[in-house]
């Protein structure tokens, strides 16, 4: 159905965006829950620094985030060099690089939502669970995590919707290779730079708009369902 409407290259950009957004959310979730937990419940000296660090991608220009990733994960970077040397993994200019850049940009969005979810969890319920014989981890997985679920899902959907449109960090760190790293926004950008590309740009922009809006509506719907499920509605 896509073929009639979009060129192969355009369809590929849409698919890549969807796949990148999904993967970036999946890799972010567990660390985001950990960081949110540290920020809400942790009592350690570097807490404010961690908070600031997590939120940095929200305020720093995305291009700068991309540049920082390039410096760290580039072929001669302090992480990139050993990755290539020991494991033969080269990130730059691959779709994995797109995922990494998107994940870093979306991370604060997930952490913020998860954190809100965790702040809503009544610590009294966790205390009750422990007196019933559940250890710390048991309580976390059977009480805390299920009660945080609305926050986690809301964060995941928002980060997914935002991840579809990540531009600056991706183009800087992963470049703009059609079929490899050219996501939806990059394809739109390329179309606007190409003579006669207006129709392509409009089509892709429309898809981009619809996906983002759909994501936000879905997030809202899930949040309501979850709250009702937890009896908070």
């Amino acid at each position, binding site marked *: 159905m896509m073929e009639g409407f979009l060129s192969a290259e355009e369809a590929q950009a849409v698919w890549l965006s969807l796949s990148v957004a999904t993967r970036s959310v999946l890799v972010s979730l567990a660390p985001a829950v950990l960081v949110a937990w540290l920020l809400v419940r942790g009592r350690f000296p570097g807490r404010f620094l961690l908070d600031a660090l997590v939120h940095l991608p929200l305020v720093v220009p995305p291009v700068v985030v991309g540049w920082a990733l390039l410096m760290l994960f580039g072929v001669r970077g302090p992480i990139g060099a050993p990755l290539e040397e020991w494991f033969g993994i080269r990130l730059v200019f691959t779709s994995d690089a797109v995922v990494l850049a998107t994940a870093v940009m979306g991370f604060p969005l997930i952490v913020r939502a998860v954190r809100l979810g965790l702040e809503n969890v009544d610590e009294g319920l966790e*205390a009750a669970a422990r*007196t*019933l014989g559940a250890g710390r981890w048991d309580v976390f997985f059977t009480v805390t995590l299920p009660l945080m679920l609305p926050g986690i899902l809301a964060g995941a959907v928002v980060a997914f919707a935002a991840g579809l449109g990540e531009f600056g960090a991706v183009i800087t760190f992963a470049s703009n290779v059609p079929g490899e790293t050219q996501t939806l926004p990059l394809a739109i950008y390329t179309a606007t730079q190409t003579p006669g590309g207006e129709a392509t740009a409009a089509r892709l922009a429309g898809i981009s708009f619809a996906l983002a809006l759909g994501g936000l509506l879905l997030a809202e719907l899930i949040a309501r369902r979850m709250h009702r499920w937890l009896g908070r509605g």
Partner: protein
Amino acid sequence: MLEVQLRHRFPGFALEAAFTAGPGVTALFGPSGCGKSTILAAIAGLFRPDEGRVSLAGQALLDTQARRFVPPERRRCAVVFQEGRLFPHLSVEGNLRYGLRRAPSGAEGPGFEVVVDLLGLGALLGRRPRALSGGEKQRVALGRALLSRPRLLLMDEPLAALDTPRRAEILPFLARLRDMEGPPILYVTHALEEVDALADALVLLEAGRVLAQGSPDELSLRPDVPLAARRDAGAVLSCTVAAHDAARGLTRLAFPGGTLEVPLRREAPGARLRLRLRARDIAVARTRPEGISIHNILPCRLVAITPSAQHPDEVLLRLRVGEAVLLSRVLRDAVARLELREGDEVFALLKAVALDHAPG
């Protein structure tokens, strides 16, 4: 046997309490903010006091000197909280089974069906906590705690969040729980009616300290204890339902020392119950009055006249009827008019309708 010894300094408040609790229900009784919930939290392992020792059946759960702190999940002291604290994401059955699933395999206790029956939870099993009334929530919380097979059941004002009719609905369940061969219960409350209905032993707390410890009957007679200074103070009498007289609308209760006639009760003959005879409801006469509406006229001996600490114009009379002791609160002036002396034979007068306030 539970042995508790705690010291903790809060800003502007010091907790320093020591007491023991045996089998049955021990009530920790005192005004709000006297530290009773903190004590309970320390026993459950949810609060670490500065100093202290808590041991249950000889095993130390907390010993700050020996640097021993058993985490709450290994203490097996289940708590019923004031707000129930049911898990909102689990059904009633899921809540009930939460503790059961984690109980050690060797632990003894009533089975799932027994507890569901005992607390009347059969119709609620599939429901979510949010679809329950306040009273139902507390019953589920009670069942959940019981099913975790605790060695000690801690109750932190389990009825305080409920209105009076709900309270009356739960109290019989608690009494049933007490009467089965269950774990010892430590019951925190500031409601005298709950102490009367449930407590086998009483620990009186005020401002973080233990004022007195003993049986409720004994403590309610001690004028040096604030229990006797309350407006609803009085002796607690253990009675048995002797007979109902439905035609006259009254029930006869036997107690060691005589019988009482009270408004018709629901308990079956032979049932045991505890009645608080409020000191202010009992009058005293020199001679047996005649042509009087009062049902209960008990011959007794005046054993002590104690001035009331709180009300300088009042005195507490201690009256012995057989083995039982009653308290009567009268004006100092009444003692003078009747020329009452310790050792006198008098009659205690008690209206039947003054006894319709007891729970149950």
